């Protein structure tokens, strides 16, 4: 498949990646940013929670509030990364719209910025998503600066509130620029330009939270993209049941110790594997019933390094 056909399988331009904590959403977001940079394209990978997860993943020093190249992709593409800080975003915003200059710095000095983003958490989210919107829609000399923006978003438990910016600010700001800013963000997030992808493991809690998040996003009219099953493992047992007698004969035939301890140990491992796989199958069915397209990523045996990310990127494009 040509690279433009492959990237066309992910039609949105702003890809919001969420998932329960521990499901690997940062890894998936990074792999998606690499994948979408195929064919000489440029992507931006954004984080908003001050965790410096991107820097850790790529093994680089903490990211400043600036767009930095973190990876090149064969074919001339590149991934840049940005850690959005709400204070910096507010100052930038003030500067852009009000030319505050030195007054802006004074505000920071007296703690006004900290105050503003603390007292009005909705404001903080508008600033963060506002910055993401700015990067998504930014053009230079008539050309888009980024072919795609991938946001490593807050986890499933908070994603609805995070993206539902107008509801939060409407409560505080009834008129004025903050209101129009949040409305601009809201309409981008509800347009086909955006897709929210939900990363999950085939485990009960992450699947339940994913289903809840999909329902919540649906009721907010925010477009859900794909369900990404992360760290999946192949079924290693083709048979539906395992007996000790069978294992005893098999171990003997293989010239391995076939004492009672070895046989029952191996049987216990095989049965646990079967239980696990059956649970995974039923969870997979539940996810399929949402009707959302799914893509599966394998568990990386050697942990996540650059070649692992590339493997995941390739699976995202072909799966």
């Amino acid at each position: 498949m040509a690279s433009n056909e492959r990237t066309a399988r992910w039609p949105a331009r702003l890809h919001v990646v969420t998932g329960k904590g521990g499901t690997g959403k940062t890894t998936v977001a990074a792999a998606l940013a690499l994948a979408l940079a195929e064919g000489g394209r440029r992507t931006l990978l954004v984080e908003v929670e001050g965790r410096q997860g991107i820097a850790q993943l790529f093994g680089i020093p903490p990211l400043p509030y600036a767009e930095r190249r973190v990876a090149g992709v064969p074919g001339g593409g590149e991934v840049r990364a940005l850690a959005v800080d709400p204070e910096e975003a507010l100052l930038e915003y003030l500067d852009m719209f009000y030319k505050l200059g030195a007054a802006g710095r004074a505000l920071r000095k007296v703690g006004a910025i900290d105050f503003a983003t603390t007292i009005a958490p909705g404001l903080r989210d508008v600033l963060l998503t506002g910055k993401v919107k700015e990067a998504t829609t930014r053009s230079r000399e008539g050309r888009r600066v980024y072919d795609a923006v991938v946001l490593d978003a807050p986890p499933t438990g908070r994603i609805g509130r995070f993206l539902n910016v107008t509801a939060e600010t409407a409560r505080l700001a009834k008129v004025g620029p903050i209101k129009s800013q949040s409305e601009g963000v809201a309409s981008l997030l509800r347009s086909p330009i955006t897709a929210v992808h939900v990363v999950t493991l085939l485990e009960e809690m992450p699947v339940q939270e994913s289903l809840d998040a999909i329902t919540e996003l649906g009721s907010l009219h925010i477009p859900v993209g794909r369900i990404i099953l992360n760290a999946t493992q192949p079924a290693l047992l083709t048979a539906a049941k395992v007996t000790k007698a069978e294992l005893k004969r098999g171990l003997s035939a293989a010239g391995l110790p076939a004492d009672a301890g070895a046989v029952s140990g191996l049987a216990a491992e095989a049965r646990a594997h079967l239980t696990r796989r059956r649970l995974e199958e039923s969870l997979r069915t539940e996810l399929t019933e949402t009707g959302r397209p799914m893509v599966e990523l394998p568990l990386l045996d050697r942990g996540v390094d650059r070649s692992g990310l590339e493997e995941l990127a390739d699976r995202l494009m072909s799966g």
Partner: protein
Amino acid sequence: MTTPHLDVDALLADPSTKIVVCCGAGGVGKTTTAAALGLRAAEVHGRRTVVLTIDPARRLAQSMGLTELDNTPRQVKAIDTEAGGELHAMMLDMKRTFDEVVEAHTTPQRAAEIFANPFYQAMSSTFSGTQEYMAMEKLGQLRATDEWDLIVVDTPPSRSALDFLDAPARLSRFLDGRMLRMLLAPARSGGRSMFSLVTASFGVFSRAVQKILGAQLLTDLSGFVAALDSMFGGFRQRADETYRILQDPQTSFLLVAAPERDAVREAAYFAERLVTERMPLAGLVLNRAHRTEMTGMSAERAESAAAALDAAGEHPVTADALRIHAALVRLTEREAGVATTFTDAFPAVAATSVAAQPADVHDVDGLRAIGAALAAAP
């Protein structure tokens, strides 16, 4: 050097252990661990125990008979009370807890004004940190009643495990901050502005806020700030008291992690913080650790035997089972490697591990099994 083993039973049985705080990254099984510890303290050690959960999975909450978020400890039925213990469980209602704090520190009329203010409404339900602060507030309240032998606390699913330690201080710093004082300065000086550097920069702020947010918002904000002002001392004092409870030797922190890189890194950050803050770290619980049941067979040996069986076209089930064993051995090796990043950095911190369960836990029997695994000898 081997890591000392965490003796969970000794910790739970010790009458001087009054509070156990379970903390760690999201998705590592904190709530399940807290519930299992509470159950074991009640059933095995006969202690009157309450488990404070923050955001339990629906089925886990149901397993303890919790159906609503109502801030009231409910006795968990269907447990073994032969040892004389009781288990109660509650889910934190963040907003109600905040309301209670406000009510405790101001007049009913003032409280009504505060509740009606849109800033209060936003802050009490969404301020990142309110949940952490209110969890600590609730812990302080439970401790103050002196009704419980043991309080087990699950911590909020924070962005980072550290938020939970920082939030009370952040909130009190915020409430005591320069910004707030500046907003109050005109009111305190009888409405006349003082010609000082402070009010000059406040003027800049006020103008900027007016310009950006509009006048209505500024009015709401001033109202909120003025109302909060009456509760200043109270907030500050409570946050300080909670902090002292956390430093008390009767409190024990348990770090909960899964043998995954991020979770272990988070646990290590947290351990560093606890040491810095002089808070009592009891040990590390490594959840979801995989174990092999067939000891003494290497991954390589199992794989080559499986390949030989395949080649002979015999015993396909045994060949599959051997490959499952090989994958499990590799996984346990990888997990052990991840765990050493913590134990190498904190060799003196005791640890225990709980085997990965093939399916999630959502009944009392499951919690009992986890409790037994937590307490089991290595």
